[in-house]
């Protein structure tokens, strides 16, 4: 995050437990306007839990989240496969309007999202017939309808081929260019390095690193290990910390 750039989202000391198991133990997290942050970590590290708390879907046991206008896009498309692209967009536009999340007319929101996703020609197609990448675009479009300042994406490119992933990121980066902050979780370290300006490593419910990919490499090298590519550095970093 550039020094002095306004914060789009800030979380402080977020903790969450499920039964006796601690999922998050005092995590700090922030995203600046127009910034892209990747959330990486082993399975079960608490990435999805953190995103769902940031999105307001789950409540933290302790800590605070300060954000205005957050949209959450789940890992799997949260869409009705038997409805068309337009019908899905129209449903969520109407619900958002009814919930007072936007003053824009649903019809206008739908047209804007069809334009944004580039799916106007397939507006009448059932979502179930779209490719995974296109479904994810509609999925993200639903999250973007109310014009959020922060977009939270849970593993957005899972199951997509490289070409679909490329198209999806072109779409997301277009939103970033308009000032939307993006935080996404991923297991694909290359994807994190390629698209994120900053990387946050979460392990066993703790935020153990927050910086750029180069800073992660340098930290590994500073401890006398060969950094190699980011994935090698990431694994060395976790190993050194006992994860």
């Amino acid at each position, binding site marked *: 995050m550039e020094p002095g750039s306004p914060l789009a989202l800030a979380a402080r000391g977020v903790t969450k437990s499920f039964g006796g198991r601690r999922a998050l133990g005092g995590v700090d997290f922030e995203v600046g306007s127009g910034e892209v942050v990747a959330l990486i970590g082993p399975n079960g590290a608490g990435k999805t839990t953190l995103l769902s708390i940031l999105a307001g879907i789950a409540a933290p046991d302790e800590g605070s989240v300060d954000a205005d206008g957050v949209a*959450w896009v789940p890992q799997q498309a*949260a*869409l*009705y496969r038997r*409805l068309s692209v337009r*019908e899905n967009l129209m*449903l969520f536009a109407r619900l958002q309007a009814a*919930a007072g999340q936007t003053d824009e007319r649903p019809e206008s929101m739908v047209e804007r999202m069809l334009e944004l996703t580039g799916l106007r020609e397939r507006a009448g197609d059932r979502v179930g017939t779209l490719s995974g990448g296109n479904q994810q675009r509609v999925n993200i479009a639903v999250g973007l309808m109310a014009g959020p300042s922060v977009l939270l994406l849970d593993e957005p490119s899972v199951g997509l081929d490289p070409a679909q992933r490329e198209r999806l990121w072109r779409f997301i980066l277009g939103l970033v260019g308009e000032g939307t902050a993006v935080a996404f979780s991923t297991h694909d370290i290359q994807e994190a390095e390629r698209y994120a300006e900053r990387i946050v490593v979460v392990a066993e419910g703790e935020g153990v690193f927050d910086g750029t990919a180069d800073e992660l490499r340098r930290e590994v090298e500073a401890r006398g290990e060969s950094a190699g590519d980011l994935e090698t550095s990431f694994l060395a970093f976790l190993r050194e910390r006992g994860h």
Partner: protein
Amino acid sequence: MRWLLVKDLQILRRSPLQLALLVIYPIAIALLVGFAMTRDQEQTTVALYNAMPAGESLGFGGEEVDGGEIRDQLCGRVECIDADGVEDAKRMVDSGEATAAVILPEDTGDRIRSLASLDPDPPVIQVVVNGSDTVENQVTDDRIDAMLSEANLLLAKRLSEAANQYLDLILEGGRFDLLGQDIEVLGLQKSERILNRLESKLPPGADRQELERAARFARLATENLDLAGPLLTAITQPIKADKVVVGDEAPSLDTFAIGVTTAFALMFVTVLLVAGSLALEKEENAFTRLSSGLVTRTQILVAKIGLGSVVGSGVALILLVGLGLFVGIEWGRAPYWLLGILFGAAAFSAAGSALGAAAREVRAATLAAVMICLPVALLSLVPDDAVGPAVETAIDVVSAVFPFRPALDAITAGLELSGSSTWLPLVHLAALVAVYGALARIALRRF
């Protein structure tokens, strides 16, 4: 919430198989049940072979029993088809052309006539049934018993009438034919008058006393034989039933059949639809998105109950209109039975929501719906008297906590009954909507 309902209806419309089932299912059920209800017992086919000589008189004691009359009595409750012989009758039963065969032996006429003689030899008719079907055997037995009862009643009445004619002859005197000879019978009343006249002409003494005894006997016999006529008439049907209904008013059998058919269709369509639809929200990951600020979980639940109520009521209405083509449905009472259907659909929807919320996946929800609905509904139809007190109590409890029985009561009451029978099931169903709605809402917390 309105948009959630519109969305569910759009999804329903997009599933041609589901939509076709929702339309075809009630129509097919209405046709099947309608035909079954109008078929009745007249359609039970019985092969009849009459081996009695053609044109034979079946008269006895001056009473004529027409052969055609006996046939009419036998065939009054079934459809008779004539067989050419005993073997032909058996073939008809064996091939399924007839449910049973009734064979009137050649000596049937002689035996009927002997009933009015001093040496009665009752006629024996032969009944042939196909023994391969347990249920049909029972039904056929009942039909044949009913046929024989009708014929026996006719003969008993005619025998009684013949006996009454003999009694009148003995009492009042007259002429009758015996083996071609015309015989005059004096009769007890005339005998008494003659004896009384002769007695008054005799001087007191032993002869007069004997005559007086004979006259007294004739008077007593006349008086007592007067009672024999009504007695003979009475024994043709010694017991008559005077039915008095106590307790709750019960619907007619036709109304009950319509109610059961409608309640079953309503139950299956509504519970399966709502349970599956709610579980689908989870499977399509839409529930979390919907409930993260767009709508509340309670609103999602209410929309699902609304969906089930609208679709279930529509299906039940199609079914009733279809049944109305076959059996009499009082359309003037539509507001009453529509209320029953609507409340029933809402209660089934609430139960379906609870199932769907607990199961959380479509297949599990569907399986649970079938496994719970079917046995509970069938259990609700078990008559109280068919089981012991403990089991009866258990069945009553199960019937009360599942919407099938109150829905059935509400629909049948709406079709036919009045008073508290109409609104009590509605109150019961409203309570079940609240209970199952609350259970579904609790289950949605961890959905």
